C-alpha cells in the first residue's frame, strides 16, 4: 500500500520533470529538470529491486554526465529567439514522426515479447543471498563477455578520438615542464660572485 503510494508519487514527478525538460524556455532549467527525471527513474529502479542500476544511474548520469551538460549550457550564450524560429515549419514533419515512433514503441512493448514471464532469464531461480552486483557481474563476464568487451573497446576508441579532436597545439605558447622544474639544481640558476667592495673615496676621485 505505502509502496504503491511512493511509486505513484515518484512516477508522477518523473512524468512532470520529463514534460518540463522539453517545454521550459531556459536551457539551464531544462537540464536541471532532466536531472530530476534521472533521479526519479533511479528511485523507480531501486523500488523494482535493481539497486545496482538505480545507484549507477545516479552516479554516472546525475553525478558526472549532467554536471558536464550543465557546465556547457551555462557557458554557452544561447539565443532563445533563434532557437524557436521555424517551429511551425517543422511542426508538420515532426508530428507524423512522433506518431510513428509512438506506434512503433507500442507495437514492440505491447506485443508481450518483453513480459517478465516470457524472458528465459526471468525464469531462472535467483539465490536469496546473491547481491544485485554479483548477479550482474557473473552474467556480464560469462554469457555476454564478447558484447561487453566490444562495447568497452568502442568506448575507448571514442575517448581517444574525442581527445584527438580537441588536441590543438598552438605555436608560440610557452608551457611549463614539471619534470624540468623538478630536475633543476641550485648551480643552474644561481651564481655567487665575489665583488670586492670599492671605498667611497676612490669612487669620487
Amino acid at each position, binding site marked *: 500500500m505505502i509502496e504503491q503510494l511512493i511509486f505513484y508519487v515518484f512516477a508522477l514527478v518523473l512524468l512532470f520533470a520529463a514534460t518540463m525538460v522539453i517545454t521550459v524556455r531556459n536551457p539551464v532549467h531544462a537540464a536541471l529538470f532532466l536531472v530530476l527525471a534521472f533521479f526519479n527513474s533511479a528511485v523507480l529502479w531501486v523500488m523494482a529491486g535493481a539497486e545496482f542500476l538505480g545507484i549507477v544511474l545516479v552516479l554516472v548520469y546525475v553525478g*558526472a554526465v549532467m*554536471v558536464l551538460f*550543465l557546465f556547457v549550457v551555462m557557458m554557452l550564450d544561447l539565443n532563445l529567439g533563434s532557437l524557436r524560429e521555424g517551429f511551425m515549419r517543422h511542426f508538420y514533419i515532426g508530428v507524423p514522426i512522433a506518431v510513428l515512433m509512438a506506434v512503433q514503441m507500442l507495437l514492440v512493448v505491447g506485443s508481450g515479447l518483453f513480459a517478465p514471464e516470457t524472458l528465459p532469464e526471468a525464469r531462472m531461480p535467483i539465490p536469496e543471498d546473491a547481491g*544485485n552486483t554479483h548477479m550482474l557481474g557473473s552474467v556480464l563476464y560469462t554469457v555476454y563477455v564478447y558484447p561487453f568487451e566490444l562495447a568497452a573497446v568502442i568506448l575507448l576508441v571514442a575517448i581517444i578520438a574525442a581527445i584527438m579532436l580537441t588536441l590543438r597545439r598552438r605555436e608560440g605558447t610557452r608551457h611549463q615542464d614539471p619534470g624540468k622544474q623538478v630536475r633543476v639544481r641550485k648551480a643552474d640558476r644561481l651564481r655567487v660572485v665575489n665583488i670586492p667592495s670599492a671605498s667611497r673615496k676612490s669612487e669620487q676621485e
Partner: protein
Amino acid sequence: MAELTEFIWIMAKIVAILVPLILAVAYLTYAERRVIGAIQARNGPNRVGPMGLFQPFADVFKLLFKEVVVPSNANRFLFLIAPMLSLMPALAAWAVMPFSDGLVLSDINAGLLYILAMTSLGVYGVIIAGWASNSKYAMLGAMRSAAQIVSYEIAMGFALVGVLMAAGSMNLSGIVNAQAGPIWNWFWLPLLPLFVVYWISGVAETNRAPFDVAEGESEIVAGFHVEYSGTAFALFFLAEYANMILIAALAVIMFMGGWYSPFHGLPVLGPLFDWVPGIVWFVLKMCIFLYLYLAFRATFPRYRYDQIMRLGWKVLIPVTVVWLVVLAFMIIVGLGPWFN
C-alpha cells in the same frame, strides 16, 4: 500499525545520527580555529564560555539572525534551493555508515556505490549557486569547482575499486569485517598508494585547502558563495564540514579497520582493550583524519588551478590504475595476512 512503529523507529535513528553529526560540525569549526591558532602561535577563540567552548553557538545564532540577501537579478528559486542541494547529499550519505558492529541505519549491499553516488551529487549545490547568483566571481568559482570535483571523483572511484577488490564486498560492514585484526591487517598497508590517492582526492572533493581554488579569496573573493549571507551561507558552511567528516569516516572504514581496535586479536594487548566499545575507536580514528584536514589548511599553500588538474589526471589516476594491477596479483597469490 507495524509499519507506523517501524517508520517512527527509523526516524528516531535518523535523529540519533544527525544531531551528533551537526554537533560535531559545530565543534569541528571550533577545533579548526583553535588548531590553526596554535600552529600560528596565537590563541584562537577563547572568550565565549569556558575556553571559548560556546563560540560555535554564538556563530550559529549570529548567522541565523542575519538577513538573507537575494541579488536583484538572481534566479530566486534556484538561488535559495542551492544551499539545500549541497547539504542534503552530505547528510544522506550517512544512512549506510556502520559506526560499530551492527550499528548501522541501512545495511545495503551496494553501500559503497551509494556513498559514491551521494558524494557526487554535492557538486550541484555549488554549480547552481554559482549560476543562480548572476555574478561573475560566483560563476568562475562554480566552474572551477565543477571541473575539480569531476576530475578527482575518477581517482577516488578507482581507489575505492581497489578497496572493493580487496574486501570482495561493497557492503561497508563487509569491508570492515574483511580487515578484522590488528593494525597491520587493515587495508592501509596493502593499498598504501590507493590510500594516499583516496585521501588527497578526498581533500580536493571537499574543496578544502590546499585545493580550495573554488573559493580562493585572493583571486575570486569567495567563489560560488560570494552572494550568500545569513542562513543560506550557514548551510554551505555546514555542508562543507559535514562532507569533511564524511570523507574522514569513509577513510576509517575503507582503510583503517573501521571499529576494530588496533590491537584486536593480539595475545596480551587484545583482551586488555576489549572493554572499549567499537564506536570509540571509530571516532578516535576519524579525529586523526579531521586533524589532518586542519593541519593541511594551516601548512600548505594553495595549489594553482592547472597544477590541481595535472595532479589529478596525470599523477593520481595512473597511480591507481597501476596499483589495481598489482593488487590483482596480490589477491591471486593470496598474499598474507590480507588475502589468504
